[in-house]
């Protein structure tokens, strides 16, 4: 059979090909593959499948360098989500995904549908979603547009997750002009399943039936995948109708129906219709199963009349799934879907003939030979060359930057840093997220360095966190990539969990630019180094390229989503100081490093210098020592040093919980030789502040692992404030102004934004 044009299809011209994002070479390749000119429908299919978003044509060779295996990894990259075993017959499925471009255009719906998509990736594996995380990057909060984006994105994430009844428990947010025109919105979902219920998205069994389930297909979001693979330029204004609207209520029904369907044993495979909708889900399932597939677009339930095969194949209408059903069991599937007030329609079949065929009734509208439509895409090995400008920035001697006069009082600087939105409390954001539904959240947002969820029926708990300092990656991609993983692992270890595996979302600029591809290759290399050193294989992720605006590329931001396991809930550790008289111990050591710091950026407006060094052996030793001390019951609180350094970490331990603030008396004399600002605000890696009733034991454990450990102070009543002695100099400050700076910075900034945020607040539908 061969595909024929439909009446009314546009003629294939070079301009049309270009509009579909295919280069002349790629078009040649398509003609060779088909042995003829493609139909309009085929051109649409290929433009979606060969988009960066679906094909990874620029990134695949680099991704192959990542470690992906460990005895506990049940499913590595290539499926809807990665899966690891956590013992007791249980497994955890998790994945992160970007929705940057949709969120830049329509923050509320863009972020909401991003959440919806990642949820589907996890529950199609047979897992019950138990937690959501989100990693966000915005420009400066001083800009009205940014405040509008923040308001809309946060509300979109909240409304979707809240309605689904999946707690949003952790995340990370940074603000920097580099993200001004192109915010990053990455959402991560974590689900739990019984190992024996794991299901994959692999079309199998010739004769099996293919069904479309969930919502009907509309004209929304057509070509979203190729949209995600373009720069965000002014032209995008014309592409606005591509925005999709999410319906979390339908998704909640789909979740319940899907889990029931998988439990029924009547389906062979399930895949979310995400980017490039029906096209990519069907082609990917066929490829994984190494089988042929035939789909009849006239049988796909449509929301609007007169939809063409092209539109049906490429629609990105939300809340839909493609299911391969055992032949003869279609009625069971219909019954389950009907119970949940959803549709299920037979739309195709798994066939022996190695072909991907789309028909519209009797007419063949697209037909591709072979079963490798997805991987038979072009592969590029772009040139990589570091930008001279960045080399120069990194080499800059930041120690030569003069202090501002106000810095004579280090508490002035500390207060400034605590009010930097990147460091300040994110409570304004996470109090819009239901973090306690499902009654597993032991540590929610703000309570610890990572979120902790108990696993019912076991003594175990999971720890999860996202992290990435894009400024580090910008100034040194390899080190920055390493630190992203190391910090996420440290955060997870601080709550008492052994870091186990990683999902990642690689947010970069245009890979065709050598300087960007250099960042990409090096950052992924750094991630790989760290994942090997920390024994946290990569089980999946997502690549989001072309994150550029007329202002330039975003900071290269390889967001890490880390999952760790706590064997005994008794070991769960929070970040705040709790008992007067406890010793404060610093694991790791301050250094004379200031480069790439929040201090330089926020206080001096400088983005330069080398990021702090990352010693992966030391990071590993730190985690081991910390976990052993926690397991031995020595550790009362733990908090790592990240943006803002030691002083910010100490202040957070003292006042992060406004209902239970504690003072601290700290002596840093052993490092009196360091410049004060490097000691207090430098971002040396591999450090954790703990409080303990048994400092000697903690220090002994640390020594055994070769980790420097120093008793640096004592927990005091809140009334004592924060008091720091260095040599002969003692400075102190009450907690209230520090707490005010930390807790009120973002609310204050957002209060300046009634005009921009009000419309999304008023407009949104479901809010309960």
């Amino acid at each position, binding site marked *: 059979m061969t595909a024929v044009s439909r009446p009314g299809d546009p003629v294939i011209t070079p301009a049309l090909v270009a509009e579909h994002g295919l280069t002349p070479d790629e078009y040649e390749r398509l003609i060779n593959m088909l042995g003829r000119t493609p139909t309009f429908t085929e051109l649409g299919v290929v433009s979606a499948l060969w988009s960066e978003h679906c094909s990874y044509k620029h990134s695949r060779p680099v991704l192959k360098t990542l470690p992906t295996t460990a005895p506990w990894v049940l499913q590595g990259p290539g499926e809807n989500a990665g899966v690891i075993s956590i013992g007791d017959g249980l497994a955890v499925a998790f994945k992160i995904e970007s929705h940057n471009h949709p969120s830049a255009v329509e923050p509320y719906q863009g972020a909401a549908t991003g959440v919806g998509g990642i949820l589907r990736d996890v529950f199609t594996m047979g897992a019950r979603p138990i937690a959501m995380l989100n990693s966000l990057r915005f420009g400066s909060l001083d800009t009205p547009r940014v405040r509008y984006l923040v308001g809309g994105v946060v509300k979109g994430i909240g409304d979707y997750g809240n309605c689904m009844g999946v707690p949003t428990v952790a995340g990370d947010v940074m603000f920097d002009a580099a993200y001004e025109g192109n915010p990053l919105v990455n959402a991560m979902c974590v689900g739990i399943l019984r190992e024996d219920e794991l299901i994959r998205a692999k079309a199998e069994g010739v004769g099996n039936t293919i069904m479309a389930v969930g919502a009907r297909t509309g004209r929304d979001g057509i070509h979203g995948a190729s949209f995600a693979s373009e720069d965000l330029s002014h032209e995008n204004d014309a592409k606005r109708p591509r925005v999709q609207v999410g319906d979390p209520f339908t998704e909640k029904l789909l979740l319940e129906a899907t889990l029931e369907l998988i439990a029924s044993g009547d389906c062979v495979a399930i895949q979310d219709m995400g980017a490039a909708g029906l096209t990519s889900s069907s082609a990917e399932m066929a490829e994984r199963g190494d089988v042929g597939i035939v789909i009849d677009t006239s049988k796909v339930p449509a929301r609007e009349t007169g939809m063409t095969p092209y539109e049906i194949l490429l629609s990105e209408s939300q809340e839909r799934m493609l299911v391969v059903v055992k032949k003869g069991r279609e009625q069971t599937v219909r019954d389950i879907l009907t119970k949940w007030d959803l549709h299920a329609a037979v739309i195709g079949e798994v066939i022996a003939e190695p072909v991907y065929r789309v028909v519209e009734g009797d007419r063949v509208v697209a037909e591709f030979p072979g079963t490798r439509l997805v991987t038979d895409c072009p592969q590029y090995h772009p040139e990589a060359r570091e930008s001279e400008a960045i080399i120069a920035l990194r080499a800059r001697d930041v120690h030569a930057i003069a202090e501002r006069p106000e810095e004579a009082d280090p508490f002035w600087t500390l207060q400034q840093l605590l009010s930097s939105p990147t460091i300040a409390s994110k409570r304004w954001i996470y109090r819009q997220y239901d973090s306690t539904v499902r009654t597993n959240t032991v540590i929610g947002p703000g309570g610890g360095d990572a979120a902790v969820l108990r696993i019912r029926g076991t003594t175990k708990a999971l720890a999860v966190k996202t992290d990435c300092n894009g400024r580090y990656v910008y100034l040194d991609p390899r080190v920055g990539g390493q630190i992203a993983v190391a910090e996420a692992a440290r955060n997870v270890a601080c709550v008492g969990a052994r870091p186990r595996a990683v999902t990642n979302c690689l947010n970069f600029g245009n890979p065709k630019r050598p300087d960007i591809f250099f960042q990409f290759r090096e950052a992924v290399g750094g991630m790989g180094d760290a994942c090997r050193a920390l024994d946290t294989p990569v089980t999946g992720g997502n690549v989001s390229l072309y994150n550029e605006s007329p202002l330039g590329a975003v900071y290269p931001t390889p967001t890490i989503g880390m999952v760790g396991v706590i064997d005994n809930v008794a070991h769960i550790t929070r970040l705040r100081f709790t008992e007067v008289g406890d010793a404060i111990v610093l694991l790791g050591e301050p250094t004379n490093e200031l480069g790439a710091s929040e201090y330089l950026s926020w206080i001096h407006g400088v983005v330069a210098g080398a990021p702090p060094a990352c010693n992966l052996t030391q990071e590993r030793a730190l985690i081991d020592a910390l976990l052993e001390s926690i397991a031995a019951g020595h550790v009362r609180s733990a908090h790592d040093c990240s943006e803002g350094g030691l002083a910010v970490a100490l202040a957070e331990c003292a006042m992060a919980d406004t209902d239970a603030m504690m003072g601290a008396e700290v002596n840093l004399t052993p490092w009196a030789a360091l410049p004060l600002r490097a000691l207090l605000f430098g971002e040396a890696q591999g450090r954790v502040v703990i409080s303990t009733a048994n400092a000697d034991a903690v220090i002994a454990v640390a020594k055994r692992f070769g980790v420097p450990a120093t008793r640096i102070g004592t927990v005091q009543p809140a009334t004592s404030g924060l008091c720091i002695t260095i040599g002969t100099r003692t400075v102190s400050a009450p907690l209230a102004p520090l707490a005010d700076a930390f807790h009120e910075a973002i609310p204050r900034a957002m209060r300046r934004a*009634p005009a921009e945020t009000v419309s999304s607040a008023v407009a949104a539908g479901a809010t309960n």
Partner: protein
Amino acid sequence: MTRYRVAVHIVPRRGLLDPQGKAVADALHTLGFSAVTDVHVGRHIVIESDAADAAAAEASVRAMCDKLLANPVTEDYEIASVRTAEGA
């Protein structure tokens, strides 16, 4: 039977706190629309329905409002328009 398009306004009852209206009014002031003195935000629901005539269409939408569309404790409604749906 003819297809009618009936539009209904559902508005928060006067006297109740209307934070949405207030937020919109404040935002408009911030944007420089200083002549704005008051704002109310309600719902605009358009129902397409088959009925024998306009009066029947309106009566049935009134029944929908009484039963479901408006909350009698906090909202008032009014039928804004009854038209035949074009192309029906």
